[in-house]
């Protein structure tokens, strides 16, 4: 079971899961300018609402497989 670090906290996800699985329930990926939570909508790389920072780059959590030790930051 891979363990990823989300905003400094360890989160265990199922083998083969995508990063969205580590974003909580309901999943939160980033915040709007007014601070409202934003999260995955389409689950297939179209809406760009699931953007997270992974090692300095922005990635789509719904398309990125979770791997042991990944450090993710939410905007």
């Amino acid at each position, binding site marked *: 079971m891979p363990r990823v670090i989300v905003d400094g906290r360890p989160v265990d996800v199922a083998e083969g899961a995508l990063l969205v699985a580590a974003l909580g329930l309901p999943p939160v990926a980033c915040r709007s300018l007014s601070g409202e939570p934003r999260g995955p909508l389409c689950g297939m790389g179209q809406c*760009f609402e699931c*953007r997270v920072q992974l090692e300095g780059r922005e990635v789509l959590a719904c398309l990125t497989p979770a791997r042991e030790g990944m450090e993710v930051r939410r905007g």
Partner: protein
Amino acid sequence: MNPDVLIVGGGVVGAACAQALATEGCRVTLLEAEGLGGGATAAAMGHLVALDGSDAELALCRLGQARWNALAPDLGAALELDPCGTLWVAADEEEMALVKPRCEAYRAAGIEAELLDARALHEAEPHLAPHLPGGMRVPGDSVIYPPAGARLLAEAAQRAGARILTGIRVASLEPHGLRLADGTALSAGCVVLAAGSASKALIPRLPLVRRKGHLAITERRPGFLHHQLVELGYLKSAHGSDTDSVAFNLQPRPNGQLLLGSSRQFGDEAPDIRTTLLRRMIEQALSYVPDLAQVSVVRAWTGFRPITPDHRPLIGPLPGHPGVLLACGHEGLGITTAPATAELIAAEVLGRKPAIDPAPYLPSRFPELAHA
């Protein structure tokens, strides 16, 4: 109901006309088929730019800029007016040689313009590619958020007494009025046709074609960019007539996002994104701002500019249709020039002297419009 003025279309141009006419005391009703500012206006970049393709173009741009600045306090913060200025970037020494005369032409026209050598250019925008030789800064240009501009102008018109009706489609123009899609006939002292490209559906002989454009917007990178950047070769692309072209345009949004433009295509009537053109646009942008490779694009979309044969809009009476005024065909400058258009339309409706010479924009300059 017998309003003095019926305006067809609630894009930025129709909304600006409604605001100007209502403020000057006309009884105004604006009819918008869908939502306010949802046409070309919603797709646009919102660069309020003094473009000098011709004296007439520059005059309309400058009046538009002055009016936006005067309206801004009343329209409020949602307009997102950002006085960031334009930085015209030369691609090479050949283009750099054109900067000095261009600066002089701007100054002769009374517009502040500053020549930047390579060093000043990179101080102004550190992310520009090191090999770029310089450019010209025009500090008086600015940026707004176009769909908010249309909505805020319509709301200002409403405060001045105008009626703003959405979801109402005009089916045809009739003598002394018009007919709605549901068959209702409305009469008025005059009708202002501000339906953008769709104006041609109501008056088929209008010399209007549509030119498609792509835009893309990135994630937020506050502080990455300080000016609206435009490649100096832009005018070639903007006024060239036939082939598909791509011109580099990059705009800092107040929230830190970067808005990237733009392509120009004729003959592609579908709103779909063409990935080959989007790729060309991005590659072009990377040649000016290589660090963009580290910034992800989150959305891309297309829009259509309403184009006339001489690249000037159609503003004023339509010969053969008493009471019908045109306010359409604004190409890639309609956001900038909407309030100037409104001034010309208001002067025509009220029979007073306009702030600038209306002749270059009169529909009657085209032979197919000069006679009924």
